[in-house]
């Protein structure tokens, strides 16, 4: 059905597109150009061809950063797609005091990163609460230095990411859950479907589009993880820089008035291209679901 004149959608998307082009795409194209130079912040630099890309291929730190970011995506996407949904279901019902809980669960999102980092290091410090608890339980004999171990750091950072992300994505699910019909739930209950089956056959299909969106958002955010690892490792990326993420490496290389803008730009371009991989995967898995609204 011809529902609109050809230019109507363009008018509607125009502001968004213009904004994005001016304030995001243009700087990015600039970055691509710079990745072929040896520019520094106050000197334009000279064209160096693919030197920066060759350097990247040989860079141990880039290898570590790539691993970190990929591990992050693989672990965080499932966790942050499912757990916030469960949390949303938990606070969906109107119960006395629920406003309090809903607001509280949102706190991690708005909590100051500095404070959070401080608390987190207290927990996972070699003499911190977690180590004390593990020793008391007899799981370990001597403290495990979570924060100076490659995988330990990654583990703690992922915990922190999940902790911070729960409330954030919970809110998206809450909005989406509005579209899951109550009747469907009731009908399923009358049919004798248990909670698990109702979750799988009623809730999940209803929030499917939201799940897709959230997995995309999580994948992008995970690929670009920065703050958590930065604060937990004080910007060092752990011993040997083995727990660096890509964005941390970009900063380490390019920050400040003496930064190596050329190489940092190269890493940014690589990050951009690499982020397309998980996105492509998610998009591919969801090709069929174009009109999920009709299912509700």
């Amino acid at each position, binding site marked *: 059905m011809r529902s609109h004149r050809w230019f109507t959608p363009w008018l509607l998307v125009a502001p968004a597109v213009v904004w994005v082009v001016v304030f995001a795409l243009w*700087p990015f194209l*600039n*970055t691509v*150009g*710079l990745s072929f*130079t040896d*520019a*520094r*912040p*106050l*000197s*334009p*630099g000279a064209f160096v061809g693919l030197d920066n890309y060759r350097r990247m291929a040989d860079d141990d730190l880039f290898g570590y950063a790539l691993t970190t970011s990929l591990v992050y995506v693989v672990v965080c996407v499932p966790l942050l797609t499912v757990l916030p949904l469960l949390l949303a279901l938990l606070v969906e019902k109107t119960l006395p005091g629920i406003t309090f809980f809903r607001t509280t669960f949102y706190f991690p999102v708005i909590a100051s*990163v*500095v404070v959070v*980092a401080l608390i987190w*290091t207290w927990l996972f*410090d*070699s*003499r911190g609460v977690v180590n004390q608890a593990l020793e008391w339980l007899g799981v370990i004999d001597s*403290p495990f*230095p979570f*924060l*100076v171990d490659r995988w330990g750091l990654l583990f703690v950072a992922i915990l922190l990411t999940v902790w911070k992300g729960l409330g954030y994505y919970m809110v998206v699910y809450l909005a989406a859950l509005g579209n899951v019909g109550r009747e469907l739930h009731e009908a399923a209950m009358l049919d004798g479907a248990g909670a698990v089956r109702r979750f799988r056959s009623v809730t999940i299909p209803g929030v499917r589009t939201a799940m897709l969106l959230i997995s995309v958002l999580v994948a992008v955010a995970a690929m670009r993880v920065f*703050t958590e690892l*930065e*604060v937990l*490792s*004080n*910007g*060092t*990326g*752990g*011993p*040997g*820089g083995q727990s660096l993420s890509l964005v941390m490496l*970009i*900063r*380490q*290389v*390019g*920050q*400040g*008035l*003496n*930064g*190596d*803008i050329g190489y*940092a*730009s190269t890493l*940014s371009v690589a990050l951009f291209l690499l982020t397309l991989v998980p996105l492509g995967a998610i998009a591919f898995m969801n090709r069929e679901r174009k009109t999920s609204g009709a299912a509700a």
Partner: protein
Amino acid sequence: MKHSTRITTAATGLLAAAALAGCTGTAGGAGATGQEDIDTTGELSGTVSFQTWSLKNETFTPYFEDLIDRFESEHPDVTVEWLDQPGDGYQDKILSQANSGTLPDVLNLPPDIAYPLVTAGKLIDLDAADPTLAETYVPGAWEAYTYPGVEGVFGLPWYLGTDLGWWNGSALEKYGFSTDDLPTTDEDFLALAVEMGKASDGRMPLLSAMPTIDQFASNDIEILDDQGEFVFNTPEAAAIVDDYAEAYAAGALPPEALTGDYGGNADMFKQGKVAYTTAGSGFAGDLASDAPTIRESVVPEARIGAAPLFVQGINVSNDSDNKAAALAFAEFVTNTENQVEFVQLALGFMPGTVDGSADAEALSASVDDPLQKQAMEIVSEAMTDARILTPFQWTDAMKTFMDQQLALAIKGDLSGQEALDKAVEYANANRIEQ
């Protein structure tokens, strides 16, 4: 002096900068070439913008307001606009100012941040502008604003600092050590650290930071050779790293120090997690505010090894439309009288002029707190020998890289020599002055 978080400090110049570099086609060229004498004796007029770094607060605001008032009354046609930038994000701010041609006329830059601006021709050669200035300022600090390959001097020394060692007395006593004869050499210090690590079973380490470039320099290891190549991967330096690795194994260094940032050792000290740290004399005040309990038994001592010299200076922008008034104001801010008054507020720092630093006694006269006073005396004594240990060529990225390698070495995954070789290789591959 600054114990803040690196998270936000971590300047994000990066791509931001990237875009800039693309836009400033005219930057570059070594220094402000062909610069002439600037005459400040004539009638001055116009507006001068003046930028400080993180000095707008209860303590310093009245000082700067008064300073500006006095200058304006001496030069009635000049208006000074004071800007202060927050501590975090300063490099980003400077970068965006430099790139958009909006650098303030007069600003505060330490020598390492000033360097890229100098090479981009953004700062005035003050020696050329007024040849009489050279003899006014402390020579060591004056030279901090000279750079190899660039003719000129680009900053007026403003306030100078160094640091000292702080010992947690009650923590030492708890494990059977006394504060009466504290070690004064690196060897004794490391030996004590190992003993204490063993005695406390790693619960109260003495060391709080990994070795730094300062420490190598302080042990007379050459950092840069005449060609500007980094050469500090000597066996002596490697031995220091290996000693730390041994100390770490004995519980003399907390694991978290392997990822410690600038100021992280002082933070751990305040948390009661380590028994020693280095910090400026203002740390007495920090302790009073953040850790009053620890302060009760704290013992300040001169730093082990050579004292590092930290320099802050006042610079004049080459883009300024009003260079004469700007230079006059820069000289006014850094004259002996105003500097002495300044460091009476910035406790533990020394004025950057020859006359100002001659009378160190006067600086602590107004201080009542005995611990603060003691610390200031230690500092003013150390100042006489203090020298700049970290060369301006040593960038943040190099430091981070070296820390990463040293952490591996201290954990025992690399030898000290291997770690230093890698750090030197990285530093030489990324030299900034070429």
